[in-house]
């Protein structure tokens, strides 16, 4: 454990030095300017409760405790200055920075943090990572003004990654609130870079700088203007007309419609996000046959699918071990070498494999039947309205037809989709995978038997006692090399059994306009994963932005 901690803190100092150097070359950017972002909502309301309406204000109005900056490989300490585990590893002690203030000038203390965390314990709807509901965390105690302690039920080093999901609100305001679930927090007091509500109109709202922000000279920008939009297709012209600085939306044919007219100022960067797979219900025929699953995987031309169904924005995934490019550094090269070919487009091999395993067209309709003679005809489920996925699945069915397999797109309502994936009543379905701080969380969602019925990724029918134990062991140990071993083993298990067919990694939708504002992360300077809808990532990004 200690060694990883050292790694994190070293890396973070390294990053700070790097940024500091970059800044000193150009002198400190001047303050001022407004960032405009699009929000898909029918209207803005004066609700500044981060627990019920956090999408717009988390991170920016309420500073995170700390952020795991996975892309930079660092821990970004925000309100928290440092943390350490107790001797028995059953408690985590967090130390806040000194002199922290709320935007109204009152001191921000460990009591505020403990109070806020306990709100989540009292109101399960606020329990953002389910740490209290699952019993993993039993208590949060303010040791003194600057220190609080998270008390764990058992040794579990995966808990710390979920701590940043919890919001910290001022006790001197929220303590007097009768029902925090319906509280609209009309005069918000926050700790983030922007706290002062300038105005709220139905179609636009503006929030400006926190006079008591803890970071010297930050934020560079004065305000954030939120603009309401109906859907992505309405955001497109606004982006094209320089009305928006930071977009996080699907934009059709972005090279042609956005970049080409103004290549100097209109940019996008779509780094890999969560890995997308087609999950197969291996309790049903023909998916119960591993060879069929292998043939399925080899039948798909992933490059063309990505190119046509999604404009080439996603990153093709040729790793069958359950991870996407986001976790590239965790991928086991041995697994890649042994099983990578399963993800290469090879219809000949797929057909041969099927033939070898007894699949034949016995009734002469041009499609293969199961070895026992029963027909193959399955549906691949997708949520109606998620058009890029619908198009992806359409292409998948075309490729399957090429090797003689009959399948159909089945676009269903979310409620139906949700239920069938959790309960395992689907045949095949396209779905995402968990993207978090560490790949172990992803594997936990795939395989741990306690997740069956709870989550969309777990009910495919492939589980093992051994895998459960590996996942549990990972949380209890601190030995980095053993951790790596466990991850490799899990990847091998995935590639051997193929409970899902990896397709690609979703792109992170990130368009930016440098007409007025610079400081954006880029492929060359990827200081943070550019996700607007992530409290921690966007506060890091926002603090780097400044006027041109």
């Amino acid at each position, binding site marked *: 454990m200690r060694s990883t901690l050292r790694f994190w803190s070293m890396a973070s100092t390294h990053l700070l030095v790097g940024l500091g150097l970059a800044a000193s070359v150009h002198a400190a950017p001047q303050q001022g300017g407004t960032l405009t972002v699009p929000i898909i909502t029918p209207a803005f309301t004066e609700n500044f409760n981060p627990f019920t309406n956090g999408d717009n204000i988390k991170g920016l109005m309420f500073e995170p405790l700390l952020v795991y900056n996975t892309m930079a490989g660092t821990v970004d300490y925000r309100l928290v200055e440092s943390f350490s585990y107790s001797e028995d590893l059953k408690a985590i002690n967090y130390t806040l920075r000194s002199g922290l203030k709320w935007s109204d000038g009152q001191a921000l203390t460990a009591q505020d943090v403990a109070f806020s965390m306990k709100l989540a314990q009292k109101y399960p709807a606020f329990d953002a990572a389910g740490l209290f509901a699952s019993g993993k965390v039993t208590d949060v105690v303010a040791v003194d003004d600057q220190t609080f302690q998270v008390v764990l039920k058992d040794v579990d080093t995966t808990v710390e990654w979920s701590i940043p999901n919890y919001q910290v609100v001022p006790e001197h305001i929220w303590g007097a609130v009768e029902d925090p679930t319906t509280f609209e927090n009309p005069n918000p007091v926050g700790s983030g870079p922007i706290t002062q509500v300038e105005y709220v109109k139905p179609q636009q709202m503006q929030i400006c700088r926190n006079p008591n922000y803890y970071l010297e000279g930050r934020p560079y920008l004065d305000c954030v203007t939120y603009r309401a939009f109906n859907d992505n*297709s309405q955001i497109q012209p606004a982006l094209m007309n320089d009305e928006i600085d930071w977009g996080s939306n699907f934009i059709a044919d972005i090279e042609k*419609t956005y970049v080409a007219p103004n290549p100097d100022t209109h940019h996008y960067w779509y780094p890999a996000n969560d890995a997308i797979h087609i999950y197969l219900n291996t309790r049903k025929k023909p998916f119960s046959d591993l060879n069929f699953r292998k043939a399925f995987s080899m039948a798909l031309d992933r490059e063309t699918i990505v190119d046509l169904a999604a404009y080439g924005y996603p990153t093709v995934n040729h790793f069958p071990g359950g991870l996407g490019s986001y976790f590239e550094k965790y991928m086991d090269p041995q697994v890649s070498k042994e099983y990578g070919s399963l993800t290469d487009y090879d219809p000949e091999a797929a057909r041969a494999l099927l033939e070898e395993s007894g699949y034949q067209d016995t009734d002469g309709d041009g499609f293969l039947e199961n070895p026992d003679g029963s027909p193959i005809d399955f549906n691949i489920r997708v949520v*109606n309205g998620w058009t890029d996925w619908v198009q992806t699945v359409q292409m998948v069915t075309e490729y399957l037809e090429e090797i003689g397999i009959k399948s159909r797109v089945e676009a269903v309502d979310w409620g139906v989709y949700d239920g069938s994936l959790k309960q395992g009543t689907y045949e095949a379905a396209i779905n995402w995978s968990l993207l978090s701080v560490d790949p172990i969380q992803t594997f936990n969602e795939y395989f741990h038997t306690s997740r069956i019925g709870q989550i969309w990724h777990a009910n495919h029918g492939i589980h093992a006692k051994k895998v459960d134990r590996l996942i549990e062991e990972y949380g209890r140990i601190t030995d980095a090399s053993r951790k790596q071993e466990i991850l490799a083993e899990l990847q091998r298990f995935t590639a051997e059994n193929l409970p899902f067919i990896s397709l690609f990694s979703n792109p992170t939708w990130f368009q930016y306009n440098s007409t007025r504002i610079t400081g954006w992360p880029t492929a060359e300077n990827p200081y943070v994963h550019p996700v607007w809808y992530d409290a921690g990532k966007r506060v890091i990004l926002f603090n780097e932005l400044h006027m041109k």
Partner: protein
Amino acid sequence: MDASVTGKPALPESGAKARPERQKKRFHRIRGFFHGNPPALIGVGLMVLMIVACSLAPVLAPFDPERRVARPHEAPSAEHWLGTTRSGRDIYSQALYGGRTSLAVAFGSGAIAMTIAVLLGMSSGYFGGKVDEWINFFTNVVLVFPQVPLLIVLAAFLGQVGPPVIALLIGLTAWPWGTRIIRAQTMALRYKEFVLAAEVMGERRWRIILVEILPNLISIVGGGFIGVVLYALLSQAGLEFLGLGDPSAVTWGTMLYWAQNNSSLFTGAWWDVFTPATIIAVFGGALALINMSIDQVSNPKLKTGPHLRIWKQLSVKIERQRSQS
């Protein structure tokens, strides 16, 4: 449609002798419908042309509408007359095949709605009394419901609604207008001599309804049918455009949906949007023209065209004769 129209009562006639007579009359009626009535000609012409084209889709369409046959969003060319969609499918073929489904839905819901309308409207108008009171009340209540929002909500809650479900939904919600008109018309015919005579002669009720009254409602039922078909065509397109339909079914509405979803207007692929849009508009327009013509024929007062022209020619002649004498 005008509720005050009264059709000509057909005399209770039977036997083989009357048949050629009737057919001749019918032919005259049909000729009369088109004669000097360009909108009717245009409307029926367009409709027939499009129905024929769509039903011949397997012959006329060069490509499978559900297969990728080219690069995405290729502009119209010799090979792909109307270009290709974002997923590389041939739009011309999609339009033909999609038309089959769209038209089946439109005519299907028309048939469902008009069957209900005829049943309810005629029973209400013929039997009167309590039956009439209840049916009329029920009809009026359903009329108060906002049809389109209701359709949208129903479709949304049912999840992915395929074309058959859409046809059923529209058919089951679109009958009240027809019911009202048919009821009024049946009431007007109810106490005509030929109906009373048939009753006195002891004809069975269902026979009176079917044989004596129904034939006189043909133009109204026909007009109502066309009206519902038009309404169904538009509603289906609307529902599917909003993404409430089955996106993997090829219909004119889903073509529009995909075009809109792939931002075709922004990326310059106008053909992707305007092909289905134009087709729906033209077919709808044709139906509207037919409906207008039916209206004019069934209400002789509205008939302009030939009569007026003949009268004008006559008056010119008269003037001339007068001035000569």
